[in-house]
C-alpha cells in the first residue's frame, strides 16, 4: 500500500514523513512507544492503514521504521478521531469528500466569489453534465459572504422557492450524490457545503441513506413523503375540517371540541395561525445561537413540543395537537432545506384551507406540484435526478 493511495496528491506536500535510521529509534514501534523517551500522549502506535490515513489527514506526523509492520503517529494525544461530518472549512470538507470518494475522475474547480470568498466546486467528470457544472460554477462565482440587502417582502417571496442547492452534512451522502451527477460546492462562509442542483431526490434523502440497500431506500421514501405531507397539510386540514367540513369529525369528538371552545377568544383559524407563527419564531431564534450552543438545538425542539402539549390544555385539543405534530414532523424531515420550505409553504396552505376548505387545499396542492414540475436550477429540472434519462 502506498501513501499515494491514501492521500490526494494536492495534500502530499503538507505531510511530513520522516524515515529514521534504526539507531535513532531502536526496536519496534511498540518498543519505542514504551521506552519512555517520548511523552506517551505524543506517540501513538497504529497497525492499520485506515488509522494511519486518518492520522495523517488530521495533520499528525507519521513515522515508519523499516522492517516493522506498524507505524508511529507523532503529535496527537489519543488516536485521532476525525469528525465524521462536514464543517465550515473548505479544505477539511474536500478532504472528507475524497476520503469517501477515491475516484480519479473527481475534478475540483477553485472559484473566487464576490468579495474574495474562496469556493471550491467538485464533481465527477463522467457523471455530471457540462452545462450544469458551468452554471454551478458561475453561481459559485457570484457567491458573497454578505447577504444582499433587499426589502423584507422580496426576501419572503424569494424564500417561497426551493433553494438552488441543498445543505449536506454527511460525506457519504455527498460521495454518493457526486457519483449520480450532482455538484459539490464548498466555501468558507457556508456553515456546511452544498450539493447542487436541488432535486426532489436530494431533498428527500436522509444523511445515511447511502448505506441502505436500494430496495430499502425506496421503501423508506414513503414514510418521508407522508411526513412532508403531514407537515404541509395537517394544520390546513384541521382548519378545513373545523371551518367547513364538520361532518368529517366523529360526533362525540366534535361535541368535545365544541365544549372546549365555548369561551375561546379567537376563532380557531386565527388560533392555528398564531400557534404556527409562535412555533416558527421560536425555532428561527434557535438558529441564531452560536456553535457552542448547537448542542442545545435538540432540547429546543423538545421544549417546543412540551409547550405544544401545554397548549392542548389551554387552547384546546386541536390547535395544541397541530402544533406538537408540526414541530415533531418538521424536525424529523431529512433535509433542512425541505424543512424550511415546508414551514413557509404551510402558511399558504392554511390560507387556502381557510378560504375554500378541502377544495382550496386541493387546488393549491395541484399548483404546488406544477411548480415542482417546472422549477429548474442550473438548467436541470427539480423533478429528476441528474443521471435520469427523462428531463
Amino acid at each position: 500500500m502506498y501513501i499515494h493511495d491514501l492521500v490526494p496528491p494536492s495534500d502530499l506536500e503538507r505531510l511530513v514523513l520522516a524515515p529514521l535510521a534504526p539507531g535513532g529509534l531502536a526496536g519496534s514501534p511498540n518498543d519505542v512507544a514504551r521506552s519512555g523517551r517520548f511523552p506517551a500522549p505524543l506517540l501513538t502506535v497504529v497497525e492499520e492503514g485506515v488509522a494511519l490515513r486518518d492520522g495523517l489527514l488530521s495533520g499528525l506526523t507519521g513515522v515508519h521504521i523499516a522492517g516493522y509492520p506498524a507505524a508511529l503517529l507523532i503529535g496527537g494525544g489519543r488516536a485521532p478521531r476525525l469528525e465524521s461530518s462536514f464543517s465550515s472549512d473548505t479544505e477539511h470538507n474536500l478532504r472528507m469528500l475524497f476520503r469517501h470518494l477515491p475516484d480519479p475522475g473527481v475534478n475540483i474547480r477553485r472559484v473566487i466569489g464576490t468579495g474574495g470568498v474562496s469556493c471550491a466546486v467538485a464533481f465527477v467528470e463522467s457523471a455530471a453534465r457540462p452545462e450544469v457544472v458551468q452554471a454551478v460554477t458561475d453561481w459559485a462565482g457570484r457567491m458573497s459572504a454578505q447577504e444582499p440587502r433587499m426589502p423584507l417582502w422580496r426576501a419572503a417571496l424569494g424564500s417561497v422557492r426551493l433553494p438552488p442547492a441543498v445543505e449536506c452534512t454527511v460525506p457519504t451522502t455527498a460521495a454518493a450524490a457526486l457519483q449520480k451527477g450532482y455538484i459539490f460546492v464548498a466555501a468558507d462562509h457556508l456553515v456546511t457545503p452544498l450539493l447542487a442542483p436541488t432535486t426532489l431526490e436530494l431533498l428527500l434523502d436522509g444523511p445515511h441513506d447511502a448505506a441502505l440497500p436500494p430496495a430499502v431506500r425506496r421503501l423508506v421514501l414513503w414514510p418521508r413523503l407522508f411526513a412532508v405531507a403531514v407537515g404541509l397539510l395537517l394544520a390546513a386540514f384541521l382548519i378545513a375540517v373545523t371551518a367547513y367540513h364538520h361532518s368529517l369529525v366523529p360526533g362525540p369528538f366534535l361535541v368535545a371540541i365544541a365544549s372546549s371552545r365555548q369561551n375561546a377568544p379567537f376563532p380557531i383559524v386565527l388560533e392555528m395561525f398564531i400557534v404556527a407563527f409562535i412555533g416558527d419564531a421560536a425555532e428561527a431564534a434557535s438558529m441564531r445561537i452560536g456553535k457552542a450552543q448547537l448542542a442545545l438545538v435538540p432540547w429546543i425542539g423538545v421544549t417546543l413540543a412540551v409547550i405544544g402539549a401545554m397548549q392542548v390544555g389551554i387552547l384546546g385539543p386541536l390547535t395544541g395537537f397541530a402544533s406538537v405534530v408540526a414541530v415533531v414532523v418538521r424536525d424529523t424531515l431529512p433535509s433542512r432545506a425541505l424543512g424550511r420550505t415546508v414551514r413557509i409553504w404551510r402558511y399558504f396552505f392554511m390560507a387556502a384551507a381557510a378560504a375554500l376548505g378541502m377544495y382550496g387545499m386541493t387546488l393549491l396542492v395541484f399548483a404546488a406540484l406544477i411548480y415542482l414540475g417546472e422549477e429548474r436550477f442550473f438548467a436541470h429540472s427539480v423533478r429528476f435526478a441528474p443521471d435520469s434519462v427523462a428531463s
Partner: protein
Amino acid sequence: MTRPRISPRQLWVVVLGSLLTTAFYTFPRAAAMATSTAAPWAILLSGGLGFLLFWPVVAKLARHPGKNLVDLAVIAGGRPLAIATALLLGGFFIGSAGISVRQVSEMVVTALYPHTPQTFAMTSLVAVGALGAAASPGGAIWVGSLFVWPMLFAIGVVCVGNLGWGQFRNVIPMSGHGLLPVALQLLPLTSYLDPLVYMAVFCRFIVTPRHLVRQAAYAVGIAVAAWAAVILLYQMVFPLPGGLDVQFPVFDMSRLVQGGRYLERIDALWVFSWTFGSASRLSIALLATALLFQDAFGLPDHRRAVLPLTTAILSFALFPSNQAGAVNFETYDLRQWGFVLVLGLPLAIAVLARIRQKKAWQPPETGGNLDA
C-alpha cells in the same frame, strides 16, 4: 431547448389516471343505464373491444419513434386531414373536459359548499387546470402521472368501505338476462376510452416507443378492471332501479363510508382526490388538444392555444342549463357517438397511412420547439 423526454411508464400512467378520472362522476350510473342488466360484463368486454380498435394506431406509432397522430394524418390525407383531426378530436376533448369541470363544480357546490357561487368553483378549477397545461409538456405529464395513485387508492377505499358481503345477489349476472342488449350497448361504452388518444399525441416524447402497445394494454386493463369493480360495488350499494336516481354515484358511495373513531363520513376527502384527478385530467386533455393544434396548424408553441381552448372549456361547462342536463348531455349526446371520433377516426387514419405509406417519413412541417 431540447424536446422533453418522458418514460413509457409515465405515459401509460397518465393515460390510466385519465381513464379513471374520466369515468368517475357519471360512469356508474351511465353504464347502468346503458346496459341495465350486466354492466360489469359490458365494461370488461368494451375494454377489450376498445383496445382492439385502438391497437393498430399505437402499433403503427410504436414502430416510428418521434412521430404522433398528426404525422400519421399528414401521411394519410395531407395537411387538411391533420387539421380536421385536430378540430374533431380537440372538440371532443374540450367538450368532455368542460362537462367534467361542470360535474365537479356541481358536486362541490351541491354537496360541500352550498353558498359558494358555482362560477367561482368552476373558474378556480379551470384556472389551475390551465396552469398545468401551460407548463411544459414534460412538466405537465409528470404532474398528471402523479395522480393515478390517489385515484386508485380512492377507488380501493370506496370499495372496502362499502362492501357488503352477501349483497352480490343484487347484481344481475349476464347469463339469461339480456345478453343481446348487453352486446348491443358495448360500442358507446368504448367512448370512455378516449384518453387512449393521449398516447397517440404524447408518444412523440418517448425515446423508444417500442412498448407502446403493452403500455396501452396495461392502461386499458387496469382501468377497465377498476371500472367493473366500481360498477359491481355500485349495484350492490344502490341496486337497480333505484341506483339510476343518484346524482353523484361514487360520491354518494363515499358518503356511506364510516372511517372510525377519528374520521367519519369521508366524502370531503373524496373531493380532495377527485378534484386532483379532475384538475390533472383537465390539464392533460387541454395539453393534448393544444399539441394537436400546434402540430396541425404549425404554431410555434403549444401555449398559444391554451388560453382560447380554456375559454372553450368554460363555455362548454356552462352550456347545459342544470346538472340533470349536463348528465344527459354527456350520456346521450357526447358518449353515445364519441367512439366514432376517439376510436374510429384514429383507426381510419392509421389504416389510410398504412395504405399510403411512403418509403421514408416526411418530417412534419411544424418547426417550433415543443418546450419553449
